[in-house]
Every structure is written in C-alpha cells, then in structure tokens.
C-alpha cells in the first residue's frame, strides 16, 4: 500500500497533474460560486475536456473541481444569502447573519478553514476505509452487486425529492436509457432503430452534461427571480486562533459525520450539511446563537460538506458504484478512458486510485491556499448577469460535447436530454436520480444477467445469498416505507 501511495503522490505532484488541479480548482471556485451551478454541474461541464488527459490526471482535475466548488458555494451564501450549491443553503442561516453584523470576513475564513479540516479528515478516512471495503467488494458475486446497486438507486430516489415514486421513476428512466445500443451479452442491437449513431448507446458524457447542465439552463431561464448582486463590503478581519480554537471539537465531529454520510449512496453534501448543523446546535454551549450569527453554525455545515467529498469516493472506488451525481461523473470519466471502476482498479490501475487519493489532498491544500485570494474575483463572478451565465453554459455544452468525438449526434443527445431534464425538474421528477440510473444501468443489468446465468435462470439466487437478500430488503423498505406512511396518513385523514 505504501509503495502505491508513494506512486500516487508522485503522480499528483507532476507539473501536468498540478496544472490540471489548479485549473480544476479555479473552475470549481467559479462554478460553485455561481448560483444555479451545482458542484456536479461544474464537473459535468469540464468532463468532455478530460478526454485527452491521462485517467489519473482527469480524475484529479474533477476532484479539484468538486472540492473547490463545495467550498465556494458558501461565498454567495454568506455574502448575499444565495447559496452557490445546494449544500450551502445551511450556511446562509448564520453566514449571512454574520455578514450583516460586519463579520463577513470571519464567516468566510471559518468556512474555508472548516472546509479544509473536513477535507483532510475525509481524505484520511477514505484511505483507511476504502482498502478493507474493496476486499469485501472482491468477495461480492453478481447477485450481491445487483442488490447493492439497487440499494443505491433506492436511496437516491428516496432522498432526492418530494416523491419517492417520481424519484424511482426517474432512476428507472435513466436505467432504461442505458439499455440502448449493443447488448454486451449477445451482441444484438437494442432500440437503435437502424441508427449507426445509437449502436454504442447514448454517450455518458452527453447524457450527464445534458441532464445536469442544459436542464438547469432551462430551469434558470424560466425563473424570473432577479439575480442578487453583492453591493456591500466584506470586512477584512479574519477569524483569529482564539476564536477558531473553540470550534475545533465541532469541526472534528462534523468532519467525521460528513465523511460517513458521504459514504451512504444518495445522501450527499446537502444532507451532510443539514445534519451537521443540527448536531452542532445540539452539542453547542450556545444553541441560542444559531441562526443569529454563530461561527459554529458556519463551521459545522462547511466542514461536513467538504468531508463528504472523499466520502462519496468510497463506494465508487471500493465497489465501482457511484453514490452521488459527482461520483457518477467520476465513473463516466473513468469509462471515457476505458478504465473499469471497481475493486480490481487497485490491482490493475493503482496509479489512478492512489493518484486520486494524493490528488484529493493536494486539491484540499489548493483550496485553502486560493480560498482567500479568490474572494474578490468571486464577488464579481457571483454578480454576473444571468444572460451571460446561461449563454456561457450553453456554449460550453455545445462545444464540449462536440469536442469529445466531433459528433453532432452527441451535441443533439446532450440538448435532447437537457430538455428531458428540464421537464423532469418542472414536474418534480429527479434529473439527479436519472443520471445515477444511467450510470448504474449497465452495472445493474450486467450483474442481474450474470447472476441468472450462474443460477440457471433461478431468481432464488437473490434470496439465497444473505448479503444480496439483506441489501434488497433494505432497498425495498427504503422505497416502500415512505409510500406506506403516506398512504396510511391519507387514509386516516378520510
């Protein structure tokens, strides 16, 4: 392991990797700070660019985007009460109150230091957890893989939005879209309708970019809410060591909490920051200050959401199964380079996995180093005109998807899935669940069919394996319990 870790550090410290991570950090800062662009959208927009890069460099750049975007989402949250990312919603509660009290600089520095500590805790725990878990994953057969992937989808669907049914339908739509193309088992073309372009199915890059970025462009275009502009000033006074020291216990606690939540498929940074905030208030000596400008109220969610980033890498690296949109983009980047995600990655491409470990540390340090420097430029970017932002995103989508294989069909795929993503958002379906369904689709189908081949077509294979049975049971309960509760509530009201 240590040899591989040294290899990873070597990989991360090459000029090329450092340059890519610097680009990723700058883009992550910009993307995260722009309201309406989630960390995953920022990652999706640069995904086509990773085509010509070495796999380790591509993953490191995407990781740097992810880390920086999760921090910079707090900048508009604190300064104009407009979260840049959904995880930063909680930061508005106390961050904006601190800004109104003239303590914006303190809030921003607490967010930065908290995010840094969260990132380091998460990275250390990632390395500690992922190796033993990958050994567990090696003992998984197709039935267990199928069950695990189903559990991931059920969790994503149930945590994603207002309706579990709509969440699961979105995920199923994603899985369905992934069945288009040549069937890898029989070589038969499925749903290609004679089109050569569809022979290899929909390109993951185009689908992800479309659902996440184009759909959001349409949502933003329809939204008539005027853009908040920053007109005030930010105090230059940063948090002092004397002020930060009492926050250390809560940053350590919420760092671990954020990492653990990140590991759970579907939970993600928003859930992590919400839970961290409520835990911080519960443990605080001054819970009455929460919502009125508590530094703990800024430190807790920001630490948790940055700790969540490495957490999301655990199921991705150990099992090859993404638990969030951002992890799904990482998987897409791996597939783009012909690298098969999963536990065998540790044997076959150690420089990719260990490069990512080292890259996450470097990206966290870059975030800390550039966090202060970038605040002023970020203030300008936060106030950018919506028309310019949407035009730039659409232009990036068209050029980015075209650049992948110089195919207009891919551009059409991205734009078509974008319109579908908009319709989903409009009617409370979940484009995020659809993205995960699309990425997990081939894994689910392949595991399902392999399991049936090995069991001579008997579905009992999913019940006789205790691990698969338990995972499937949890998946069914995750999906059905909210439905039963809602039905019971509706019937008792009548």
């Amino acid at each position, binding site marked *: 392991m240590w040899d591989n870790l040294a290899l990873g550090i070597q990989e991360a410290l090459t000029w090329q990797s450092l340059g890519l991570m610097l680009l990723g950090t700058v883009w992550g800062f910009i993307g995260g700070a722009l309201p309406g662009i989630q960390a995953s959208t920022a990652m999706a927009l640069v995904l086509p*660019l990773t*085509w*010509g890069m070495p796999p380790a460099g591509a993953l490191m750049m995407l990781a740097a985007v992810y880390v920086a975007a999760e921090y910079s989402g707090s900048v508009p949250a604190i300064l104009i009460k407009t979260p840049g990312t959904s995880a930063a919603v909680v930061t508005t509660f106390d961050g904006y109150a601190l800004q109104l009290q003239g303590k914006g600089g303190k809030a921003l520095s607490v967010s930065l230091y908290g995010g840094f500590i969260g990132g380091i805790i998460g990275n250390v725990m990632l390395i500690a957890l992922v190796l033993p878990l990958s050994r567990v994953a090696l003992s998984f057969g197709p039935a267990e893989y199928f069950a695990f992937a189903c559990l991931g989808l059920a969790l994503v669907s149930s945590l994603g939005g*207002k*309706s579990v*049914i709509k969440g*699961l*339908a979105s995920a*199923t*739509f994603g*899985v*369905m879209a992934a*069945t288009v193309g040549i069937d890898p*088992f*029989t070589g*038969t073309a*499925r749903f290609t*309708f004679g089109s050569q372009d569809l022979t290899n199915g929909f390109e993951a890059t185009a689908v992800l970019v479309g659902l996440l970025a*184009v759909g959001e*462009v*349409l949502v933003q*275009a*329809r*939204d*008539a*809410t005027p853009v908040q502009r920053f007109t005030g000033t930010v105090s230059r006074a940063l948090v002092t060591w004397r002020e930060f020291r009492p926050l250390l216990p809560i940053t350590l606690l919420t760092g671990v909490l954020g990492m653990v939540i990140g590991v759970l498929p579907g939970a993600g940074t928003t859930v992590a920051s919400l839970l961290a905030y409520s835990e911080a208030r519960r443990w605080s000596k001054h819970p009455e200050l929460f919502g009125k400008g508590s530094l703990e109220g800024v430190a807790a969610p920001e630490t948790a959401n940055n700790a969540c980033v490495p957490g999301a890498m655990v199921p991705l690296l150990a099992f090859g199964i993404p638990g969030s949109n951002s992890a799904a983009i990482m998987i897409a980047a791996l597939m783009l380079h012909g690298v098969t995600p999963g536990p065998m990655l540790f044997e076959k491409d150690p420089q990719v996995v260990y490069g990512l470990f080292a890259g996450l540390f470097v990206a966290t340090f870059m975030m800390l180093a550039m966090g202060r420097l970038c605040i002023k430029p970020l203030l300008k970017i936060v106030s950018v*005109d*919506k*028309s*310019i932002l*949407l*035009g*730039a995103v*659409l*232009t*990036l989508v*068209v*050029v980015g998807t*075209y*650049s992948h294989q*110089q195919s*207009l069909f891919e*551009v059409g795929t991205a*734009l078509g899935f*974008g319109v579908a993503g908009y319709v989903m958002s*409009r*009617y*409370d379906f979940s484009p995020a669940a659809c993205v995960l369904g699309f990425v997990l689709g081939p894994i689910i*189908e392949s595991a*399902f*069919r392999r399991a*049936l*081949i090995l069991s*001579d*077509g008997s579905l009992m294979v999913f019940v006789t394996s205790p691990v698969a049975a338990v995972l499937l049971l949890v998946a069914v309960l995750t999906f059905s319990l909210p*439905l039963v509760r*809602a*039905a019971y509530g*509706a*019937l008792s009201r009548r």
Partner: protein
Amino acid sequence: MAADNLPPGALFEQVGTAFFPKLLAGFLAVLSVLLMASARLLPAEANEVIEDEPPDRQAFYGTLAVILLAIPAWSVLGLFATPLIMAGTMVANGARRPAQIVAVSLAATVVVYLVFFRLFTVPVPLGLFGR
C-alpha cells in the same frame, strides 16, 4: 413494444436481450399506477408544482429556441455558430445592450477557440466554410 422485436436469449442465457428492458417497462408501469394512486389519495397541494414568481416565458422559449437551433447552426457554421448561440441566449434572457452582447459573444468564441481547439487540439469545425 420495441423490446418485442428483439431476438430471444442465447442458449446459455434464459433471460435474453429483451428481458431486462421489459422488466424495466413493467416496473415503470407499476410506478405509473402508484403515481396515479398517490395523486388520488394525497391532498391536492402535495401534487401541485408551486412557483414563487410568475415564469419568464420569453426567456424560456427563447432559450429553448436557441437549443433547438444550435445543432443546425453548428452543422452549417461550425465554430462560427458559437457567437450566435452565446448572443441568442443572452438576448433571450434579457440582455439589451448591443455592445455588451457583441463583445461578450466574440470574447466567448475566442476563449472557446483557445481552450478547445488550440490547448486541447480538437479539430476546428468550420461547417460549410470548411468544404
């Protein structure tokens, strides 16, 4: 329905190419029934799509038109369609100052050219101009 036209599974496999898509279609049908049942059972406000502000229809339809026209424009004009996509989206979303629209669109095209076609050496599409 399209899955019905797919051939049966190979000898080694009982389920075949069409089985999984059919399973998904069946599952989607079950979800549709559940959705209809929940729409009937739950109070009306739980199913409503709530919007705080009246939508900006002009911006929405304008942006949608740019999206629909982007492919023909890109296939005819190649890279030269970039400023049109940028400017079209800006105008649809309320930009009114011609100098700003022109400057931003041209700047975006230069950035796209430098990043994608110079730095990442993607072949520059020139549409009809390249033939």
